[in-house]
């Protein structure tokens, strides 16, 4: 059965291989892993992130290609016409299980809360799928956590690190920050930053990309973890980050009626999983104790006093009208806050345009 019939030119028609007994067409440059994903074959991997260049580190995605002595890493192997590929042979499944036993053995047992990050359950899921108990392959643990790095955003629990380098690569390839790197080699490999320092002394911009791509939760969202003990389920609500004009898609994570965290949407058309520090971590104001709950008007004593909505609106309308009368329609310029809800932003531009007949309206996030 040919699953893809888009191939129409003579050259393209020849781009066909066989995967798990199924004939499949592919395009030039596609890797075996990408082909397997189109077929929904669940080839396991821990170092792969489809936004990054294939790395070939975890070796879990190895598949057998007939005619080749050893299995090949499907993430780094280009599809070629006529290849006969087996993604689930007894041999590769056995090696995958050994590799998972090895990688599980290097970390201490710990429950990894999903609040840690988008990909934080990947190792856990593979462990379940392959029935890895952690009894075999025991030995020394790798990686040293950095509890001393007391930045408010990113926990660096390298005890749980498996050296897949997704954090290093996302920082370089997607963010262009090159803040994260690799120290030492072999089993002593340690993810680090310049001179082994703290994130805030490095080139890190706290965009949180490393947190979201980490497959073990070794890098974790410290702000979200504040809600770890809350019993309610995590609910994700798709929204758009209000901070600037890019329009990054986000999933707002809530527990009960509390906003507990923000996660970039990997399928967000504007951001493909990227965020900046504001979109990722700056949401505490939503539930801040300092937020106003009633209107305030300034009294003759110069202080602000609680007031009813009618009082407050009358006072504001009088002020706007006075400004228009004394300075004309262009005497007032409105700037909407990036922290305002979209509905408020819409209302203020409508207000300026209709009541002043002016286009003197902007948004602080338009940069």
């Amino acid at each position, binding site marked *: 059965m040919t699953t893809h019939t888009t191939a129409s030119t003579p050259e393209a028609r020849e781009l066909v291989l066989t995967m798990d007994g199924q004939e499949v067409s592919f395009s030039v440059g596609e890797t075996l892993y990408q082909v397997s994903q189109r077929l929904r074959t669940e080839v396991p991997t821990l170092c792969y992130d489809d936004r990054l260049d294939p790395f*070939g580190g*975890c070796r879990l995605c190895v598949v057998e290609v007939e005619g080749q002595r050893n299995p090949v890493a499907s993430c780094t192997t280009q599809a070629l016409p006529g290849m006969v590929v087996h993604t689930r042979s007894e041999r590769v499944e056995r*090696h995958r299980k*050994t590799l998972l036993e090895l990688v599980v053995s290097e970390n201490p047992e710990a429950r990894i809360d999903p609040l840690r990050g988008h990909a934080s359950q990947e190792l856990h899921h593979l462990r379940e799928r392959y029935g890895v108990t952690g009894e075999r392959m025991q*030995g020394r643990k790798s990686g040293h956590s950095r509890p001393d790095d007391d930045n408010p955003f990113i926990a660096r629990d390298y005890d749980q690190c*498996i050296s897949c380098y997704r954090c290093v690569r996302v920082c*370089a390839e997607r963010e262009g920050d090159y803040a994260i790197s690799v120290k030492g080699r072999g*089993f002593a490999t340690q993810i*680090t930053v310049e*001179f082994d320092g703290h994130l805030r002394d490095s080139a890190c911009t706290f965009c949180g990309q490393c947190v979201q791509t980490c497959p073990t939760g070794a890098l974790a969202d410290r702000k979200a973890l504040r809600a770890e003990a809350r019993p309610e389920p995590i609910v994700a609500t798709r929204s758009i980050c209000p901070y600037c004009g890019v329009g990054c898609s986000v999933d707002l994570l809530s527990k009960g009626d509390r906003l507990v965290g923000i996660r970039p949407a990997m399928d967000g058309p504007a951001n493909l999983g990227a965020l900046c520090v504001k979109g990722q971590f700056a949401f505490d104001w939503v539930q801040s104790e300092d937020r106003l709950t009633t209107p305030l008007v300034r009294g003759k004593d110069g202080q602000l006093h609680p007031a009813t909505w009618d009082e407050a609106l009358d006072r504001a309308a009088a002020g706007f009208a006075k400004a228009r009368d004394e300075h004309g329609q262009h005497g007032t310029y409105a700037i909407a806050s990036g922290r305002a809800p979209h509905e408020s932003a819409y209302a203020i531009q409508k207000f300026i345009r209709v009541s002043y007949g002016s286009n003197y309206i902007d948004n602080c996030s338009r940069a």
Partner: protein
Amino acid sequence: MKHSNDELIARWRGEPAPLLPLLHALHDRDGYLSDDALRAVAKGLRLPIADLFGTVTFYHHFSRQPPGKAAPRVCDGPVCKHRGTQALLQGLPGATVMPCAGRCDGPVPVLQGDLVRVGSTPDGLAEEPSPLPPPYPGDRGECVFAEIRTHDRATLAGYRSTGGYRALTAARDTMTPNEIIDVITASGLAGRGGAGFPTGRKWKAVAQAPGGPKTIVCNADEGEPGCFKDRALMDHDPHALVEGMAIAALATGATRGFIYLRYEYPQTLVILEDAIAEAQRVGLLDGFDLYVRRGAGAYVCGEETSLLNSLEGKHPFPRNRPPYPVTHGFEDRPTVVNNVETLCAVAPILRHGAAWYRDLGLGDHAGTKVISLSGDVQRPGNYEVPIGLPLRTLLHEWAGGPAPGRTIQAVTMAGLSGGLLGPDALQGTPAVTLDEPCLRARGAFLGAGGIMVFDDTRHMVELAHEAMEFFAHESCGKCFPCRIGTQRLTERLSGGGPVTLDAWTAEVTDIGDAMKATSACGLGTAAPLITDSLLRYFPDQVARHLAGRKA
């Protein structure tokens, strides 16, 4: 007067492959690499500081604090370990160990600054040139060693006195690139660093590859424990390497070349630079810019794609292949990467002809291979054997066998990478011969040609442990099977792992199988040959090791 950071950066910034020499210049100046120096380099070469910091920590010999380079480093390779490493470590203040430094055919080497001294006690250390190959004991004839013992061979005049550079001149004046490649192809010369890829085919691929400039890289990062052949070739016959590289450049259209030399050979660095300068002075290298770049202590840089990354100043992880270096090598341009021994064979082959070289081998095998023989034999040293020579002939007739009253219990192959051959293989019939088909059939391989000999006084589990510890120390950390597997195997060879023999063997075998099948480069696929061969040839010693542990 000491040069400033800026002066050194200005000196190197415009040169090809500038990072390693610039780091060495700073390392030489201060004795270590300070934060300030690294920040200046990052700025000067426009490298991310985090990357530069991480990459510097990858190399064993770059120090990050004083006394750094000035502190002695003592070889603790498998052979030296039995000849005085401990005494030297205890007797030399501040001394630390370094992996095999390629002097297995003499006393223990101690590297301090840019000086290598050898000896077995702190008081007995002396600077000595690396030993020449022993007088040729065979009758078939040598290729790369044929002239190496002649007087003044390392000088231009000495080299020329027996026909040196005539092959290059003849190739330049009378041969087309295709004709050169045809001779090399017909000779059967194959990669003598261990991979055995046909040299002519590699050169042809580079000659035909689009794009440029093309590059010849000589892999002189002889890091395999028990291998010291390239050192002998470069120290005593440097012009043979230079000539071979210049001929490779003619054949492929390359305009630049690098010799990537391991850190542990500082004297060799001087010898090579002198030879290159001599050859340049008389115009022999016109049109071919040849540079020496010094490594900084990383076994994996002997893997050609790690070497290229190292040369380019990147983190020395192996690259994913394809594409191969013949099309995407140094700076992603077509590149030949050849071992020292391979390149040293080129000029003799052009002078004497393809048939001559082919006939140096025995039976169907073409040519010769230098074997670095060390350990418990009476006459250790580099021997250029005809490919196909029985191992027994080399051990007993050429090298004099073990000490009187002793028997040979095991030999390693390919340094450590090829695992062990035990009594069954050494004494059985048909006899083991030194060629890949025979050795591969026995689960070993010839590789770079290091053979370490261990007599009946040695504990094989202990040796296997030392070997695996080396691989774990040198694993780059890129791929899971090697990074974790070498560590787990090391632990299991030194008292860790399951208690029962069955469970222990099952884990060791499963780890080894996964490493062999899935590792990203040769380090990870070769390391488990040690445990495989230990279980195959020495099951009793393994059982005793486990039983002793329980007690």
